[in-house]
């Protein structure tokens, strides 16, 4: 059961779009109803010389959830809503975790939605937050307080301005994941019809 948290961690980290000094970052971050863009992910695995790269699209829809679509090199779609996490392999549902059975899902989502709502307090319970804010840009480092997170994650670093620009997740195993966001669009036009249909 502990393991479930491990799986959730990467996602929770994704959700941590900024933190302390909470109030300041909160005032800088834009909170659009719909936010979509491109991500580029690089995973540096222990024992592997070259990093493993992937990219795709992501969408954050307020009050609905998050869509994470890996396009290259291996298509895969993940939908996270308040009630569940669903992974699609093509049209087929490859994995479904429901919040009413798995509190970890609820935890991920509550962190995510707390962030989207501009309420950063829940993060400070789980992470120790250090960071700097310079006018319209900021960067923070999150260190897990809780033993559960600490077993898997050693640190999460975020930086950005009006939007989050980059997330770096360092795992205790030595693996390191770097995600960069670009081509960010907001508003109803940002989300594609096929993506909107998934909600």
């Amino acid at each position, binding site marked *: 059961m502990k393991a479930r948290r*491990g799986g*959730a961690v990467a996602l929770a980290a994704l959700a941590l779009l900024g933190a302390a000094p909470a109030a300041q970052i909160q005032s800088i971050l834009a909170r659009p109803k719909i936010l979509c863009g491109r991500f580029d992910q690089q995973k540096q*695995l222990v024992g592997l010389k070259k990093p*493993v790269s992937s990219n795709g699209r992501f969408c954050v829809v307020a009050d609905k959830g998050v869509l994470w679509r890996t396009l290259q090199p*291996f298509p895969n779609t993940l939908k996270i809503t308040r009630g569940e996490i669903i992974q699609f392999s093509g049209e087929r549902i490859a994995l479904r975790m429901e919040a009413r059975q798995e509190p970890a899902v609820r*935890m991920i989502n509550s962190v995510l939605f707390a962030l989207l709502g501009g309420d950063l307090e829940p993060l400070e319970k789980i992470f120790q937050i250090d960071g700097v804010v310079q006018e319209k840009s900021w960067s923070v480092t999150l260190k897990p307080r809780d033993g559960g997170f600490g077993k898997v994650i050693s640190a999460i670093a975020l930086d950005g301005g009006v939007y989050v620009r980059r997330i770096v997740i360092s795992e205790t195993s030595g693996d390191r994941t770097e995600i960069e966001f670009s081509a960010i669009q907001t508003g109803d036009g940002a989300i594609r019809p096929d993506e909107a249909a998934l909600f």
Partner: protein
Amino acid sequence: MNRRGLAVWLWAGVAGLLLAHNLYLWLGARLATDSDILALLPAENREPALEKAFGHMVASAQQRLIVLVGADDWNQAVGAADRYLKALASGKNLLTPDREISPRREQDWLTLFDKYRLVLMTPNDERALRDRDKQYWVDAALTKLYSPVGGIKVGAWQEDPFGLFGAWLQARAQETPVRPRDGRLFVGDGTRVYVVLPFLVRVSAFSMATQEALAPLLEGARQAARRADSRVDVIAAGIVLYAGAAAAQAKWELSTIGIGSVLGIVALIWLTFRSFKPIVLITLSVGVGCLGALSVCALVFERIHLLTLVFGASLIGGAQDYGTYFLCHRLGADGQLDSHRLLRRLLPSLTLALITTVAGYLALALTPFPGLRQMAVFSALGLIFAWLTVIFWFPALASQSESAGGGPLVRWCAASLERWPRFKASRLTLPTLVVLGLFGALAAFAFARLRVQDDVRLLQNPPKQLIAEQIQLSRLLDAPAPAQFFLVRGESAETVLRREEILKQRLDALVVEKAITGYQAVSNWVPSLETQEARRALVDERLLSGNGALAVLAKRIGADDLWVAATRERLSGLAEKLTPQEFLNAPAGVSARHLWLGPVAGGYAGIVGLRGVSTKSLPHLRQAGIGLDGVQWLDQVGAISGVLARYRNYMSWVALFSYLAVYALLYPRYRAATWRVIAPTALASIAALALLGLAGQGLQLFHVLALMLLLGVGVDYGIFLQEERSRRDPIAWLAVVLSALGTILSFGLLGLSRTPALQAFGLTMLIGTMTVCFLAPCFAGGTRS
């Protein structure tokens, strides 16, 4: 001192000893009582392994108490749970949180499996390894690599690139819906969330002191949890709660029946004799009867069941018979007649009455139900001691002066007997024939409607609230059924695991059909060595070998041969042999220990527990175990119901043959009039059965047992009335009325019991005794050789 005086003093000595022993038992609190409903159940000659299996399942549940504190939202639930725990803090000596299943243990339990990862996989994945191509596994690994949430992930991606171990862990986690959340245990049903609080009861769940102390403590905690928020609900379940409710109920019934009977009988005797002395005498005989029954039972049985005492309280009504019979005759006898000579005259009928009643009780002892045996022995002993008291004391203590007078009941009896209709077989009048015909027709109609009822739930009737909470808790926790499971045996641990695996393939089909929701077994955690070996070979061939999925995967992620070699070597190293013992000794094995019996006579045994069992799934489950070596389907609920049905049948025949036996016993004395002695009881039994049919009540073992006893009691009335030379003599009739009223009172009160079995017993006796009493004068008198 003459011989008679010696007898009085001898019995006084016995009574004194009994009194002293009872004081020792009660004041010293040395009387071991039992409220465990299982103690009432048949101790059939089961094999030791079966006995151990049931014991194992029961013991794992007996000292546990599980509480769920629920609310609409998690924080509210946590707050309420904290208030609940705080309120319980004062009862640390009774109840402590069960640390073995607290979320903290989860931290270390994964480490055990590290060395064995390679062979720990779900049956689905094992099948996929056989059937799916390389590409399937490469895709699975890539999905896990690129997706931010790729199912369960333990440690780095490379530790479990194909997700086999992660999926296995997830399957293990899904054996229970309980999850750790913020350092607590969580369970939810989609609308409400609950904090799960497992407790261990520190003292015996069947000790009455425990139950008495626990009830207010838990109620206080429940109120504390709900104080701040009335939307909070608390669900509790545990054997201790059932045992407590049963004990409280038994105690209440015991005192109601006891006090009610005593008061009623004192009133009856007063109405009859208008004198205090008979009250004292009858009380003495009943008292010595009860003391004797309890003393001997305490010596013979290890513990006395509370229901024995409840049933035994009805003894008060029966044990007064002999004294009343004697005193009634004293009342009617010539003032000059010496009491010892009176006794000599009454002795044959008194003896026959005792023998028939004791025989009726001992018939209960023929059943395999330990509880019934105890009740029967208790009652028979009580009667014998009361009877002996009459024999030894009454002639000396009941002086001739008791002959004079008599109360209103005596006059009523005398007057009523005059008008009572009398049945003469030689002169059948039209009204008699009409009455007989109507009775026969009604009985035939009612018998046609008579159904049977052999549900084990007859033995107990817990408060509705307890049952409702138990059902809700079982549903939320999806807990395995405690009384229905498979026992799997084999000559070695390996054979047991192997056989469990074969059984589980059949159960998987039932899970798919939704007949059950799942199963628990040690083999879920520890595959048989044979399976471990097969999986190792499969992983080697399909994933790790030179042209396996790993090599293809490496190309896709740009890894070199060195990485492939290193990964292969690391993963291959995680394939040590896992044994049940190693698993069970580790923290991860705690929750599965009740599923492994280990070495038993003739080999090893394990249990496959089932979740989501319903009445509908039982036939499927029975079917699933058929034809598998060493696999046995055990359904304790069904087995007990089966025993109840078998003995209902068996005792019905015993009852019928008892009529023949009683007839044979009485024939030498009553000859051609013997049928007159038995007829009232036989007709009353038919009437009682007919009433059951008309009322739509199912016939059960306890009705039949009551009819057995009715034979013993009812024949007494026939004997008493048949003994009289003249029908005009109201004394025997008075004794019968008094005895019947006492029996009606005691068993009528027993009919108020909330235990369905005792209620059935009491009501049958009530109806039967009333009917016998009404019919007996109709058949009294007649030719006697």
